[in-house]
């Protein structure tokens, strides 16, 4: 089956027993997620990859994480790494008896105990998992203390950074004693017509780039990232897998941003959470302080729009210290329903279709998401029509 592994990994967190099922339909992801939840129980968590995740089509980086009615995208390198681990979908059932993380690589899925998890923030968990498994490129979707506590204003972070989880998925991890999900793989994906797919993808990308002009990282998608105090801290732009027009800008706040190497242990933060930056500006934070606040929120596993909204209650002007103090008072923070990638496309259907295809909604909204424009390129990969 082209662009698919043909496998669904399943792990029962309550027993640690894993199994796999064949996946035979290379249909769009949304229907598969619903079917898997119906089959394995509505309390399951399903991680998915899109039909074209890992193809050469621009920004074909997306995966998904679904629990109940909630879905968040998995961007960066997480979506493709999940696919390369050998599974198209992962189903996590039940609740672990002790804190642990799901470790998936090369067709194997297992539950690894991490009893010290409650003492670790999300960054420490990510670093520990990578160190324990001996690979710095492991993709880690991690919770933090707010997730452990089941706060509805919690957020998961993907490889340290926040911006994908605007639906309270962090609490779903906490309810299951799940500290993180990690994946790594060296798989390969068959394609129907490699040459046609390559040529079509290059043509598609070049057409996009000729219209978009020079890339300025997040500033190309969000004007607020053009503020002078933001630009002065820019270290570099970072693209997700296959993205020719990145929206991720890394700011250095703790050392010279013009210095390429990292010397400080936590030199800065990777920005792509537009509503969080908008809210930070609204409450009067400088770009430097906004970066520090988003770092603290990511480490805590706290959704920053909710935190900043709570910090501004009463009309005062919050600062980093007062927000850090607020992070120890979870009960004072209520969730705020403000999407990040969810608001890229005007219709929810297009957003879900985009994710089902494994495409980044932000990039494809920028270039104009029209399934007809990519159908021939997609069909050269999968070997049949998209519809």
């Amino acid at each position: 089956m082209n662009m698919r592994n043909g496998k669904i990994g399943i792990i029962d967190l309550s027993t640690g027993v894993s199994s796999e099922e064949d996946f035979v339909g290379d249909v769009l992801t949304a229907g598969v997620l619903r079917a898997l939840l119906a089959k394995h129980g509505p309390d399951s968590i399903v991680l998915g990859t899109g039909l074209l995740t890992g193809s050469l089509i621009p920004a074909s980086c997306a995966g998904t994480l679904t629990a109940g009615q909630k879905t968040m995208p998995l961007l960066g390198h997480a979506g493709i790494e999940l696919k390369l681990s050998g599974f198209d979908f992962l189903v996590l059932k039940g609740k672990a008896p002790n804190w642990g993380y799901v470790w998936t690589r090369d067709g194997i899925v297992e539950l690894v105990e991490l009893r010290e998890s409650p003492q670790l923030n999300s960054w420490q968990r990510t670093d520990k998992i990578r160190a324990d498994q001996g690979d710095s490129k492991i993709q880690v979707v991690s919770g933090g203390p707010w997730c452990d506590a089941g706060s509805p204003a919690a957020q998961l972070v993907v490889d340290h950074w926040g911006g994908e989880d605007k639906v309270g998925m962090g609490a779903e991890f906490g309810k299951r004693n799940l500290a993180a999900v990690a994946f790594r793989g060296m798989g390969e994906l068959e394609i129907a017509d490699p040459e046609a797919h390559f040529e079509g993808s290059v043509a598609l990308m070049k057409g996009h780039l000729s219209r978009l002009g020079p890339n300025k990282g997040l500033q190309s998608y969000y004007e607020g990232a053009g503020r002078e105090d933001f630009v002065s801290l820019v270290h570099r732009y970072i693209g997700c897998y296959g993205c020719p027009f990145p929206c991720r800008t890394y700011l250095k706040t703790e050392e010279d941003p013009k210095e390429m190497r990292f010397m400080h242990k936590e030199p800065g933060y990777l920005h792509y959470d537009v509503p969080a930056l908008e809210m930070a500006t609204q409450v009067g934070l400088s770009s430097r302080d906004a970066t520090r606040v988003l770092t603290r929120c990511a480490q805590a596993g706290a959704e920053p729009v909710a935190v900043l909204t709570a910090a501004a209650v009463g009309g005062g002007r919050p600062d980093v210290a007062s927000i850090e103090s607020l992070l120890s008072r979870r009960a004072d923070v209520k969730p705020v329903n403000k999407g990040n990638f969810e608001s890229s496309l005007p219709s929810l259907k297009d957003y879900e279709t985009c994710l089902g295809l494994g495409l980044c909604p932000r990039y494809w909204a920028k270039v104009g998401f029209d399934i007809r424009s990519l159908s021939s390129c997609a069909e050269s990969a999968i070997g049949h029509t998209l519809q």
Partner: protein
Amino acid sequence: MHRDSVLTPMTSSIILHIEDKANYFGLVLKTKSEGLLLGRPEGASSGQQASGSGGPGAKPILLREACDLCDGRPKCASICPTQCITAVD
């Protein structure tokens, strides 16, 4: 891709060399004639010193096949969005 008709991060002969702590980003190309070529901001060098690898699912470049220039039309140069990679005679 062209060797096996599959998409995999394991067979490319050119990879990113991202080494934050060493203060550079670069590219490593495995060639047939000169072994590993390392392109860094300070210039190109050759030898076996660069065994790092980048990207999802990547494996060390020493284990990969040497570049055959894709029969004269290097795909890495075609698909590079920033024209960071170019092919010259």
